[in-house]
């Protein structure tokens, strides 16, 4: 019941601060950014893994290749290969199957637009 929900939101807004957040609606990669957040526990916030840039202070223990700044096509191809079981994996073949082609494209589009991680 989206209309009821919207009404609830409006009613809520009536009693509280209305902040400067509507600008975020225009962010082109918003959906991709939010979907990617599911991946961050292993691949790092916004595709920049901990340990690569020395921010964690626990460097030298290895990490995954940074996804930020990789090409959209390459990222889509990787995810589709995992999804199809064509690329060997311990876990990504199981996770990739949970995402639609459209969701994969959104995630890849977001990551491709992220700045590459600076080497330390």
């Amino acid at each position, binding site marked *: 019941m989206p209309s009821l929900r919207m009404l609830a939101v409006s*009613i809520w*807004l009536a009693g509280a601060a209305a902040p400067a957040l509507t600008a975020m609606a225009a962010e082109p990669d918003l959906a991709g950014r939010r979907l990617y957040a599911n991946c961050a526990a292993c691949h790092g916030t916004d595709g920049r893994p*901990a340990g690569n840039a020395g921010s964690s202070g*626990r460097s030298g223990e290895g990490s995954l290749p940074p996804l930020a700044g990789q090409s959209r096509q390459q990222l889509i191809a990787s995810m589709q290969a995992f999804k199809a079981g064509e690329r060997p994996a311990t876990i990504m073949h199981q996770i990739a199957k949970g995402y639609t082609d459209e969701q994969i494209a959104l995630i890849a589009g977001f990551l491709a637009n992220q700045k590459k991680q600076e080497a330390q």
Partner: protein
Amino acid sequence: MRRREFIKTIGAAGVTGTAAMLATVSVSAAPSRPKVVVVGAGYGGATAARYLRLWSNGGIDVILVEPNASFISCPLSNLVLGGSKQLDDLTLGYDALVRRHGIELVRDRAERIDAAKRIVRLAGGRQLAYDRLVLSPGVDFLLDGLPGLNAPDAQDTVLHAWKAGTQTVALRRRLEAMEDGGSFVMSIPPAPYRCPPGPYERACQVAHYFSRAKPKSKVIVLDGNEDVVSKGALFKRIWAERYKDIIDYRPSFRAADVEAKTHTVISELGDEVQGAVLNVIPPQSAAAIAVQTGLANSNRRWCAVDFLSFESTQEKNIHVLGDAIQTAPLMPKSAHMANQHAKICAAAIIDIFAGRAPEQKPMLTNTCYSYVSDKDVIHVTSVHAYDAEKKTLIAVPGAGGVSAAASGLEGFYAGVWARNIWADTLL
């Protein structure tokens, strides 16, 4: 700059036509920045605080309330029992949340929530007003079903070590002090409890330690469930292959009492099992602050939420995250899940503050790695998508699964997971 954007936003809100009412009333309510109070800086709360700041570009004021001086990870804490990690390896500071993300950290305990007035009262006397409250309080133990634990000093004798910290270290010391030939007895509560595979990983870790240091000793697992709750086939295969003469697994053993003096667990059928070192993991509920606020509306134990926003179904403007919630089917109570709840919640709060309905298609992924030795690891993973008709999160059919076998490669990935989720939560 922010001020100007803010005024523009108010103008825009007036013409987007969500409701005429919105334009008329938001002006009168306008001046302050939205304020979110987050209670609990574990995997759920700290992530929520960090992502509220990141995704609002600093447009939301966030106060994070946490009584502990630092973050101690429950994931990997079984390795302290196994001896391959120290508690220090799992301890991280909160300073980056303050310094880098501009979160106000208040080291205190939330004592009472006045949902009607939207105020959190702290033990130290301070009162915090909020527009939205994010409650990520974790679990508390239910001791009514284990009367012996209420005896004087019983809880110092019978450790749970189910909240990483001093009990984890204390339990390790007892294992070290135990004579070879003794037995470690662990009692597992009926599901749901925090970290479904955790007790079975713990059995592996203690058995691994015994295999190296005390080969005549035993691990007796008293499971309140009919079978291993998570990764069952894998764990049982590994126990048979690696710890055959050490682990003694006894399903359907529901602990009904504990006798601390004699280190004995008593089942509801009257069976008694004694050990040199006792580890009783009691049944759990959402932590007291959630229960006292009336949010634990599912069997009086867990907090039901709207999965589009993680807003409580009981009280408006209060969102509940992590182990305290009534989960959707097949969603474990895990650190990884809490981290994911936090992001759906942060996105929804930002949407709501911006005058939009929360995103209608949230997804989340869970991965739990379990160390079956100091190096070899197995996983379980699942992907969950919101189902608008059923109004809940559903495990996506065909996705998810478990390891084919334990491996050192997954051990490497488990380390990667820990470093990245810690950074995603705290740095």
